[in-house]
């Protein structure tokens, strides 16, 4: 288990010595690599397009700033922005809620099963995460059309859940395993049924993990574009990422894509920073332990 972390290395005063110069040079170079594309998103969103999309040598320092790209994309005639954002929000909340609804019993069950069976079932969930989205999305459109659900938030949410559920379960299994076993036994001795013991006594104690799982699932859905692309109904509306994809692949206005990108990116960047301590290697690697 990684629970018993080794003691932290003896703390040395971090000063910029000769031996540190290489370290800081590497950090600066890597930071520039990770930040530069985000700066480009900012440039393209807030600089007149003659200096960005249509420039032969786009300037690195913006000669002028403008809101007109965002305005054109978000409020221009025929802009699909509002219905698109509404659909994205609806699906993201659905995926988050479903992840919690299915994730709690699944994670509780896995945390109580024998290790071999739990390992096998975890692997099954893990495989689901690896199967190509496009392989699943194409055949699944047919039953959705038959059921009259083509392009509906439910159909897109149910497929995106395939990506959110395994991560949610891994995160919640860790949370359940972190609780003292006696809590549940005590509640059951006191006469609570198993459901009461789980939902009344255990679940309230893992609320922080539940919030994290909900938000991570929300975020995953907000950014997801393969299921959302194959399953959207062109007659109604598509999610933000799908509209961005269509705008950048020749079936829409790139300025709309730029504006949507900006709006779609900001909440997720905030969530990523807030949630980074919940992004654990053990969860991403299905509980690999060295």
């Amino acid at each position: 288990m990684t629970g018993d972390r080794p003691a932290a290395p003896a703390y040395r005063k971090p000063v910029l010595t000769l031996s540190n110069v290489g370290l800081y040079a590497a950090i600066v170079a890597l930071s520039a690599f990770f930040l530069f594309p985000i700066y480009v998103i900012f440039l393209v969103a807030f600089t007149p397009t003659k200096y960005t999309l249509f420039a032969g040598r786009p300037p690195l320092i913006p000669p002028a700033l403008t809101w007109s790209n965002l305005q054109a994309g978000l409020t221009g005639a025929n802009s699909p922005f509002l219905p698109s954002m509404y659909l994205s929000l609806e699906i993201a909340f659905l995926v988050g809620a479903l992840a919690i609804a299915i994730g709690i019993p699944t994670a509780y069950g896995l945390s109580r099963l024998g290790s071999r069976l739990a390992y096998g079932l975890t692997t099954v969930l893990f495989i689901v995460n690896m199967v190509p989205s496009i392989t699943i999305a194409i055949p699944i459109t047919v039953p959705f059309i038959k059921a009259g659900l083509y392009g509906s938030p439910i159909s897109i949410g149910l497929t995106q859940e395939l990506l959110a559920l395994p991560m949610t379960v891994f995160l919640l299994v860790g949370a359940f395993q972190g609780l003292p076993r006696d809590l549940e036994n005590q509640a059951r001795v006191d006469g609570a049924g198993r459901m009461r013991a789980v939902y009344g006594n255990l679940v309230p104690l893992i609320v922080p993990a539940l919030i994290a799982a909900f938000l991570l699932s929300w975020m995953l859905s907000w950014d997801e574009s393969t299921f959302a692309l194959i399953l959207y109904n062109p007659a109604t509306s598509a999610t933000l990422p799908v509209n961005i994809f269509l705008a950048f692949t020749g079936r829409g206005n790139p300025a709309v894509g730029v504006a949507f990108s900006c709006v779609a990116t900001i909440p997720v960047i905030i969530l990523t920073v807030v949630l980074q301590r919940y992004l654990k290697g053990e969860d991403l690697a299905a509980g690999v332990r060295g």
Partner: protein
Amino acid sequence: MALADRSGGKAPAPVASFWQRHKEQIIAFLFVVPALVYVGVFAFYPAFDTISLSFQTPILAFTYFNYQSNVQSGLYTWIGNTLWLTAGALALQFALALGIASILARTFRGKTAFATIMILPIGIATVVAGFTFQQIFPGTGAGYANSILANFGVGPYYWLNANWEALAVVAIADSWKNTALVVIILVAGYATIPRALYQAAAIDGAGPLRQFRYVTLPGLRGFIVMALLIRGAQEVNIFQLAYIMIGSSPQLLTVQVYLLYTSGGGIYLASAVSTVLLGIVAVFILLVILVGGRR
């Protein structure tokens, strides 16, 4: 499901005593059943459906036509491009991630800020990342990478001329977006390596490089293998990032599936390419099971 049968089959005992002995386990298993039904219906069934569709046409119940047709259109080239991209992207992001993870294993001022900066791309939607890198590395001689190079009097470069160049540019974009995922897994691995091993190695006179080779790498092996397989399967699935940046040249399996499906090529031809994609991912899945089972 199948796994439950296996656990049941191991102990052929009278029903009543089986229930009594395994009551807790059976109830725990029942909690997992809804999730298993869900992934069965929404993941495994459609995957098998794809395989079955790939051997059909509107008039034929069983045929290899879809595969033969795709082979003539260049299936082997698409497979090659997909595998080269996978290999390149993996090599790049593991080199970056090993470096970053070993930086994050140290204590230094600004560590939190660096960790946050590194993780930001996870929050950028794939389609946005694709567009951004298309603005940095376009095939037109314009773009932000050339704006930087112009300061040094170099360029302009037409980044997408050769196939390998186009794939390399996609690999860079993908590594930008996903290296943090690898770092997170490797950092978890670092936490499992006892500090005493480093002290012992240092006492024996091992410098940083030898410590990395003889302490860090063996300690991280399980994590590296797992991260390689997980990321490998996801690289094979790169779709919109590549399509926005380089279109169809060179062509990838995923992009071909999408184009066949949307441009009238039909669900049957698309399913054949999709099945090939699934087959490559299945190799990664098998390796995950083998590697996982050996531990």
